[in-house]
């Protein structure tokens, strides 16, 4: 199940002696790593296993002797940096534990590092978990001999709204700059100046203090002109070995000994990154990356790290709400609220002219929750009208997912992505929609060919050195079909291990998924679907889709229905049900008796969702916060946010990412609430505990042969993208935007990219737009954004971010990507 075993190639090894202990390690190992193998700790600052050696801090000096040509072991004249020197057969290394010279050298380096260090530990956030503090105690002098005035800098320097730099604390280890360059590819900070004034800084001439010099290299600025901020900048705070880099959100908030650390899984994207949640007195103070070498390695996105305030905002609900006679929501007891909810649902599902109920669980669900929603809809409400995809979706997509993804277990993995010699991205922006997927791809920069089928080369794709196949939304199917013969992409994908990544946005492009399957077959490349949100894969596995039952079983397969009905001990309705778009449309037309809504934010839904909620006689909302749905809901049942429940996210690999309760409260997960509600309706779902759900899912397994939906065969559509009055709308979510789970975190929001509208040069010329603010309008509404003419972009397309400040596409334009819109305004 796990990554394919490495070919057991005979690894060349080297034997050496460290502090008198014989150790054998693979050739090319650094001395510092070899020492770790035998439990010998060498102090270090700049060394980080995930970054290239730098030898910047000199704290790791050790005494080394190595055999010369004659084989006589001769000592090096001076202590050597153990983090940059690789091992050699017969080497004799003496660390500070056995060599006085090494010990003296380390103490000397420490003394030098501390000369300009402010020693302001009492106000420093790192105090208590600081490698400098610890190593100054273990490997430093007990008394300072420095009596002169220390160098001071103005502090803190705001690198972005979130990341603050106190330069005087910096030990110039360059972990941060190396991370930015090597891992994230956002060189937004660098080492500047020299000598005592050497410092880390942004590309700012005031800081650089040289007049008239242009910033060198990719001192990337975004469209707003502000220094470019990275989606991964929070990692620098975590790896900074001193308190020089701090985050505005956590600055001065607590001490490590205050905090209870609970391992968890991020709820923000489908990668299922391992995180550590640090909380005090029931309140989350910060989140850190947890190391998980098979998934997120050492890194997480800033959204994973900083966006956690949403669950404890003022509108958090902890008690059920029931709409009273007066039309207002009132707090109620659980038994009252459950009774009210059951009564409402019963009225909608039983009786002569019952219109039936539909379920929109949202795609932030855990596997347990998704399963409970799925079972609840089928058994308690007797309907297949359940769809977690309150986003762009299609029947083709459902067939594709059911046929190839659901219940397929671990498919393409992060490791496969890293190893792939070629990757084709279609309808998927690795940086904006994939988070750490981007970092994995970037790890193979230079070893991997990346092609992207997109309207323009996004910054993320640019950092992957990707080749753009400019495509208007809707044209992805044709573009995929065109990857054949001797095209570069086709040739590259034929290499063993190549991967085609399709994103959830391909659902909006008829025939694209059909073509993706064909392309995979044609080239032998592996195909993987990477959705954006954390619950997409779980919803699919659990059958929270109108045409799918758990394990990829089709609702139209009699044997599949029988299997599930037997396992559940009930009868299933006849299917298939309506998808989310149809449910919303029908509800808006007053044709749905009751709606059960989970974590769905109305402003994210294209279509008349507000009318749907308004016109549906009974709306039940299961929410963490008193959100927009509550305004229309008749009963609101509070559910636990991820930190207050246990559960399992299923990441895009199909890997189960279980997490335990970080903060125990009496909040219940959706699956438990639904279990209680179903009992009230006279059905026993047995989804009260995570273990129960697990057992059921395990017993169900995945679809037998012939029980899956047919592989889709849909004709590709023709898109009419050409410069003119109407342009094809392209859009995707930026990683940092105004999503509901990023609320309450202004510092993070400040690092988001400025919302702009992008058009191709020829399109701009045809429209007479060169600059200024343009109005992108649909029949429903309009968005005003500054325009950026983007080279290499597909013609006849306008791109806007999906939910960035001032650009809420679903709410304002009310159309999905691929629709025609007009662009007006701007200056020539």
């Amino acid at each position, binding site marked *: 199940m796990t990554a394919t075993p490495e070919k057991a190639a005979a690894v060349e090894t080297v034997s050496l002696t460290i502090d008198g202990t014989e150790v054998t390690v693979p050739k090319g190992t650094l001395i510092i790593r070899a020492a770790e193998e035998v439990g010998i700790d060498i102090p270090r600052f700049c060394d980080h296993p995930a970054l290239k050696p730098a030898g910047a801090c000199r704290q790791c000096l050790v005494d080394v002797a190595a055999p010369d040509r004659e084989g006589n072991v001769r000592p090096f004249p001076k202590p050597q940096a153990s983090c940059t020197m690789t091992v050699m057969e017969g080497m004799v290394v003496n660390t500070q534990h056995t060599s006085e010279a090494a010990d003296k050298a380390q103490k000397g380096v420490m003394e030098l590092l501390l000369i300009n260090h402010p020693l302001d530990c*009492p106000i420093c956030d790192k105090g208590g978990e600081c490698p400098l503090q610890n190593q100054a105690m273990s490997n430093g002098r007990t008394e300072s001999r420095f009596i002169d005035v220390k160098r001071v800098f103005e*502090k803190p320097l705001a690198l972005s709204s979130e990341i603050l730099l106190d330069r005087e604390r910096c030990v110039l280890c360059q972990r941060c700059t190396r991370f930015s360059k090597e891992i994230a590819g956002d060189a937004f900070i660098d080492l500047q100046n020299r000598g005592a004034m050497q410092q880390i800084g942004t590309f700012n001439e005031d800081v650089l203090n040289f007049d008239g010099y242009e910033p060198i290299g990719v001192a990337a600025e975004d469209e707003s002109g502000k220094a470019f901020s990275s989606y991964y900048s929070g990692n620098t705070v975590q790896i900074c070995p001193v308190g020089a880099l701090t985050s505005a959100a956590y600055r*001065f908030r*607590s001490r490590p000994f205050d905090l209870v650390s609970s391992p968890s899984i991020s709820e923000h994207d489908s990668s299922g990154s391992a995180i550590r949640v640090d909380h005090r007195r029931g309140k989350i103070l910060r989140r850190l990356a947890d190391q998980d070498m098979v998934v997120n390695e050492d890194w997480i996105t800033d959204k994973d790290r900083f966006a956690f305030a949403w669950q404890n905002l003022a509108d958090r609900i902890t008690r059920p709400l029931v709409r009273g006679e007066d039309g207002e929501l009132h707090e109620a007891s659980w038994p009252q609220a459950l009774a009210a909810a059951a009564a409402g649902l019963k009225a909608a599902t039983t009786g002569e002219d019952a219109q039936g109920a539909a379920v929109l669980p949202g795609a932030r669900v855990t596997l347990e929750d998704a399963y409970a929603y799925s079972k609840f809809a089928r058994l308690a409400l007797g309907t297949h009208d359940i769809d977690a995809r309150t986003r762009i979706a299609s029947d083709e997509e459902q067939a594709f997912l059911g046929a190839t993804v659901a219940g397929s277990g671990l498919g393409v993995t992060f490791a496969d992505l890293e190893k792939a010699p070629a990757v084709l991205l279609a309808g998927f922006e690795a940086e904006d929609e994939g988070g750490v997927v981007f970092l994995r791809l970037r790890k193979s920069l230079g070893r991997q060919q990346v092609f992207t089928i997109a309207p323009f080369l996004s910054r993320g794709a640019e950092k992957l050195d990707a080749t753009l196949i400019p495509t208007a939304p809707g044209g992805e199917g044709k573009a995929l079909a065109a990857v054949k013969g001797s095209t570069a992409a086709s040739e590259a994908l034929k290499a063993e291990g190549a991967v085609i990544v399709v994103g959830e946005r391909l659902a909006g492009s008829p025939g694209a998924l059909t073509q993706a399957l064909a392309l995979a077959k044609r080239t032998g490349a592996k195909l993987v679907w990477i959705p954006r949100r954390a619950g997409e894969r779980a919803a699919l596995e659990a059958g929270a889709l109108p045409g799918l039952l758990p394990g990829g079983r089709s609702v139209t397969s009699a044997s599949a229905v029988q299997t599930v009905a037997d396992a559940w001990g009930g009868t299933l309705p006849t299917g298939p049900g309506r998808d989310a778009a149809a449910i919303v449309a029908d509800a808006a037309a007053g044709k749905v008796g009751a709606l059960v809504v989970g974590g769905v934010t109305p402003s994210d839904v294209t279509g008349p969702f507000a009318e749907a909620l308004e016109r549906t006689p009974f709306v039940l909302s299961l929410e963490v916060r008193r959100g927009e749905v509550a305004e229309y809901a008749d009963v609101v049942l509070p559910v636990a946010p991820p930190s207050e429940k246990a559960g399992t996210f299923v990441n895009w690999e199909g890997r189960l990412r279980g997490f335990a309760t970080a903060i125990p409260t009496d909040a219940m997960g959706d699956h438990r609430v639904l279990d209680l509600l179903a009992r009230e309706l006279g059905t026993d779902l047995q989804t009260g505990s995570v273990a129960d759900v697990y057992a059921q899912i395990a017993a169900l397994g995945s679809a037998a042969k012939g029980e899956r939906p047919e592989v889709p065969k849909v004709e590709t559509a023709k898109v009419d993208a050409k410069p003119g009055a109407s342009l094809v709308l392209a859009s995707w979510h930026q990683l940092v935007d105004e999503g509901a789970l990023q609320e309450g975190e202004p510092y993070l929001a400040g690092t988001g990219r400025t919302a702009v509208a992008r058009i191709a040069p020829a399109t701009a010329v045809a429209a007479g737009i060169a600059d200024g603010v343009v109005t992108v309008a649909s029949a429903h509404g309009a968005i005003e954004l500054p325009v950026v003419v983007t080279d290499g972009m597909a013609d006849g397309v306008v791109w806007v971010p999906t939910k960035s400040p001032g650009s809420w596409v679903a709410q304002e334009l009310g159309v999905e990507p691929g629709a025609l819109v007009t662009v007006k305004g701007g200056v020539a």
Partner: protein
Amino acid sequence: MTESDDVWKVNRERDGQAKPFESNLPQAGPVGKIFAPVAGFGVTMRNFFKPTVTEQYPEKKVAPMPRYHGRHQLNRYADGLEKCIGCELCAWACPADAIYVEADSNTPDEQYSPGERYGRVYQINYLRCIFCGLCIEACPTRALTMTNEYELAGPTREGLIYEKQDLLAPMGEAMLAAPHPMVPGTVDDDYYRGDVLKVVEEQTEWVRENRPEDPTLPENRGMHEENPEHRRSEHSDARLNVARHQTANTASWRGGSI
């Protein structure tokens, strides 16, 4: 014969040799023996006319030794800014886990202490404190010291968790209540070195502009009976009563140490 039997034998032999008990107290004569039953009254009578040594607490309070470990106090600089920077070192040092601190950032509008950081929440739980004084040793800014106040009893548990405003030192004569800006031209180090000796006009101006009603402004001084800075938080009436009592009785000997 075991060893222990042996020991017993030796002991018995020694007992046999022991002399009969003789008291070494002076023995009363025949007259003394007659009065013996009432001799105790003599002791009473004698002490009746000696000066008393019992401390008349609580009617009369006596100051303990100057370095007595009493209730804590959060000190201020001469200009009224708080010394506490919210570093939590006191909480860390405390063996009884009696201290709870939450820090926050000073802002230009709300500068409570010199520098960037101040203690927003500061609690000492006197049900836990063992008065060891490790916390005051840990404090890097001398913000936390101990007074000689020892009346730390109360009818409620919450009442014995002292909040920041309960622990803050009373405003000195020439101090200006925080928040207000630092003395212009100074940095936090100047405060730590003890170079800030008084409130300057700019600070008074600032407070005048932002809190004209502030009782620590020169023009408002003496308008209030009680110093509002040293009022116990009003969680419970019982606690408030204790506080009044303390304020009334302890004014003359507060701040004995440091």
